[in-house]
């Protein structure tokens, strides 16, 4: 709509060019500025296009096993037990990030699960996108980011964690953050249980209670 408005403006200027000509010679400068302005405005008109749409497969959606309004029990290595409430599970579409306004983009579907506990204060956010779009699933724990790379196989075919056996377990490491503060540093994750264990930098851990 903006482009149509600009084109009408340019047409108006061209139609009234004659009346502008009849003014003094100084008006020739105006022609130049009108031309430059018109050229700039025309250049800013563009149509970005959606070039692809990616949807999550059922298998990809199932990789986040949480169900809204469920709760998951965890136990801290010091012994205290608490529940993480699954506060939100949703699927939405989004457009890819583009650097310039006229860049083409893709649309992709994503699924997010959010879990929370007040005491202790823990927040999990897990988001998966179609693998055609990105090979990384994001796991966020209290603002520490753990990427799960699908292009690598699960670290463990089987592993025993806190006495229980788990299969096809991914091992996630925190991307960056303060080195000295007590924070989550590694996570064990699989598609059946989701987050299995979170290890803190001081050696403590939060582990699901089966």
């Amino acid at each position, binding site marked *: 709509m903006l482009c149509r408005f600009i084109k009408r403006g340019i047409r108006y200027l061209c139609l009234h060019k004659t009346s502008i000509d009849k003014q003094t010679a100084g008006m020739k400068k105006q022609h130049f500025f009108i031309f430059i302005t018109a050229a700039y405005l025309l250049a800013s008109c563009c149509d970005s296009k959606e070039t692809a749409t990616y949807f999550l497969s059922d298998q990809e959606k199932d990789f986040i096993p949480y169900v809204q309004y469920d709760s998951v029990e965890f136990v*801290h290595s*010091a*012994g*205290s037990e*608490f529940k993480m409430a699954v506060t939100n599970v949703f699927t939405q579409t989004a457009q890819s990030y583009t650097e310039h306004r006229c860049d083409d983009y893709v649309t992709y579907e994503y699924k997010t699960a959010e879990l929370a506990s*007040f*005491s*202790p*204060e*823990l*927040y999990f956010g897990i988001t998966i996108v179609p693998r055609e779009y990105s090979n990384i699933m994001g796991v966020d724990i*209290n603002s520490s980011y753990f990427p799960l790379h699908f292009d690598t196989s699960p670290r463990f075919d089987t592993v025993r964690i806190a006495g229980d056996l788990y299969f096809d377990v991914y091992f996630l490491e925190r991307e960056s953050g*303060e080195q*000295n*503060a*007590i*924070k989550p540093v590694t996570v064990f994750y699989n598609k059946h249980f989701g987050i299995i264990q979170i290890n803190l930098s*001081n050696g*403590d851990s939060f582990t699901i209670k089966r």
Partner: protein
Amino acid sequence: MATVLPLSDKPVLIIMLALALQACGPSDCIDINKSDYYSAKTKAWAIHTTIGDRELADDLGIRQTLILSARDSVSYDESVWDDCGNAYGSFFYSFQYNTSLSSLHFMIDIQGGEYPYESCGEGDNCGFFIRFHITNIRTSDIKNTTYDIVTQKCRDSRATAEYHEQYTVGDTVYEGVLEITFKETFAANDVKTLYYAKGHGLVKFVNGDGVSFWVD
């Protein structure tokens, strides 16, 4: 033609002139002794430069870091003058904390200057005070209160203050601890009570659920 005031208006005019002249007299002098006394008392609350990040323990056995993320101080030798030939300075300290697991941010401002002529109100930056400002970064809930060092009370009605000559936190006995209790909490993880020790800063807080977190 000059206007001549009627005889009956002259006394009123004289009284008005007298009042105006009286208002032009010298203002109250800065009470230097009280200003010095309360300045020293206020500065004692600033956190020592040797104090940095501390480890927090809680009732659940979970440990995290109380990060002293920022500290700032400014002082001016002369910031106010009176008509008695005196000048007095002012000072300001600011400290900020974050918690490494909980989503809490604490900001503590300590300020002082000349002894005020009148009592200072809630939002005033006059007199001698410690202002506590707590933000829950996750929920964006904010609460604050201002403790007046002269009156030894909170300037607002949002919290109450109690001073302890000595207070034990963990295995440490702190000399001079301020206990601030907020009347309202917004959520279970909101701060209900905090304990601030002279020279050491924040040493303990209790959330709405009654869970205590203390420097260990």
